[in-house]
């Protein structure tokens, strides 16, 4: 422990408060802006106190969207984002658990080779391989589908690595004890490995859900049908309305709505999430 020093304490708090202010202020502005009417922002001065149009703005984005600019009501977009984020998070975890299980516990030919192939995918995020990936998805007829939105993003190695690292810390005797107890490989996986990984799975779920939720470029590319728009790309469409000034009050209301689900996910999984990042249960 550092010694209790009054000025040091004060300085530390000052720096932390400053840091929090820098992060929180834009969020505050967004919330405030979503409660004013459209004209307010054209005057060039951002209000810092709540206005009286919050209810009106939120009901507009939820029920109408901005139909004349081709933006549907946000309910559907939120649902699409949710489905996409869930599919990415669950898909990634399922595949990563299995592939990490294979890499750590099975001695097959070219094991190391496959490990490095998986490793390579780390260097190829969607943005890098976006043109060929688009071609593949388009040829498979997966444009404007949930599968097209999520599958290309599921293939990645981050989670595989995390689970591999974790599995390697599980003592080998655990596997041997399970074998003596009559558990085959999949039974061992289901009864012992997965329950032991629960906190890691939770941490991965939160990270991957937010990763999926925040996808922007990919959904923008492969969806042309507005019933498959996701909320993050919806924000962009709302800003670039065809022939009018940006409706900032509605954009900000959408932004706030878009930020809610990830926050809820973190709140619900906070306990497990923090545990998964800081300790391994053994």
């Amino acid at each position, binding site marked *: 422990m550092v010694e209790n020093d009054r000025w040091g304490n004060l300085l530390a708090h000052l720096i932390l408060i400053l840091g929090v202010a820098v992060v929180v202020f834009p969020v505050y502005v967004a919330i405030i802006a979503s409660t004013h009417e459209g004209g307010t922002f054209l005057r060039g001065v951002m209000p810092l106190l709540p206005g009286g149009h919050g209810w009106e703005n939120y009901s507009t984005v939820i029920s109408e969207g901005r139909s004349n600019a081709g933006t549907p009501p946000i309910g559907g977009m939120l649902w699409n984002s949710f489905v996409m984020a869930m599919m990415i998070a669950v898909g990634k975890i399922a595949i990563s658990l299995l592939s990490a299980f294979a890499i750590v516990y099975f001695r097959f030919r070219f094991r190391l080779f496959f490990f490095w192939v998986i490793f390579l995918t780390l260097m190829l995020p969607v943005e890098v391989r976006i043109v060929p990936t688009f071609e593949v998805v388009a040829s498979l007829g997966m444009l404007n589908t949930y599968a097209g939105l999520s599958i290309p993003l599921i293939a990645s190695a981050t989670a595989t690595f995390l689970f591999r690292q974790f599995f390697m810390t599980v*003592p080998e*005797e*655990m596997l*041997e*004890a*399970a*074998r*003596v*107890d*009559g*558990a085959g490989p999949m*039974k061992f996986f289901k*009864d*012992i490995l997965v*329950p*032991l990984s*629960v906190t890691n799975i939770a941490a991965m779920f939160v990270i991957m859900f937010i990763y999926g939720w925040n996808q922007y470029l990919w959904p923008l590319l492969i969806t042309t049908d507005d019933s498959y728009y996701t909320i993050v790309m919806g924000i962009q469409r709302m800003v670039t309305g065809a022939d009018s000034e940006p409706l900032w009050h509605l954009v900000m209301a959408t932004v706030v709505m878009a930020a809610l689900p990830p926050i809820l996910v973190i709140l619900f999984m906070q306990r497990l999430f923090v545990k998964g990042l800081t300790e391994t*249960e*053994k």
Partner: protein
Amino acid sequence: MARIVMDGLSKVYPGGVKAVTGIDLDIADGEMIVLVGPSGCGKSTLLRMVAGLETITEGTLSIGDRVVNTLEPAQRDIAMVFQNYALYPHMTVYGNLAYGLKNQGLPKDEIDRRVQEAAAMLQIAPFLDRKPRALSGGQRQRVAMGRALVREPSAFLFDEPLSNLDAKLRVQMRVEIRQLQRRLGTTSLYVTHDQLEALTLADRLVVLNGGMIEQVGTPMEVFNRPATVFVAGFIGSPAMNMLDADWLRARGGMPEGLPGGTTLVGVRPDDLRMEPVEGPSLTLTGQVALLEPAGAESHVYVALDDIAEPLTLRVPGLPTVLEGAAITLHAPLAALHPFDKASGRRLS
């Protein structure tokens, strides 16, 4: 309840390393066999081969008159206690005990009966719904034993089960394991590097070195008549003193009556006396190099001329000599162990 027969068991690792070579051993039903040896002698590998966790390169292994070479561990009707216990951390004690039985597809009430019975026997009944994390080292050890017990196997395999416990608990658990094994009469194979554990637990002791059996026998046989120089040095603490026969002859300290061809003479630290003994005996003179009082007994290290390794002598209570003093030691003929230096084998 089963007899375990090993016939020429060998294990060669893919790299060509020979871990275990040509082990022949016949373990009677209900016998407690202790495998003992230094690190890397192959004792754990041999145990794991019996368990089915290591493949058998050569030879046949049968448990209860059934060749089990290619059977999975679960099908061999054995139970194993691991060094680090290997309890499932996310299951309760009850879950840990019941898991193997569930996998066997036993009915619920039968599982419950066995778990309760084992828990009562090991005094872990109050902890049945706790997680292993909430248990002390000794309690975890009991749970690990319980997991083996509930299976009602034909053989128990112990892989250094007491090495993670503190000294006091180790003695206590050692006694309990012995009592339990006697009561159940289950054939047991126990691996340890602790010779005290080996001597106290075993019906028969198997001393391994370099993947081969050095000697098989009851603890007293092994202690009183070690078959090789290695066994003589490994069993007994402090280790047996080894003296070169030529060196002894040159100094006139070599007694008559040892078998011809003796090139190495062993004598235990307890068998050396400071007062002369009757009959033919070994006589040595040297200088006290170091005194080591150890409570009820003391170790006296005696430096002999032109021999680097000092002789060890064990005396009860406090030593009556001073460091630096000249000392004469005697040992009766009967207490000497004659060996052949080249083969390392005992003569006579």
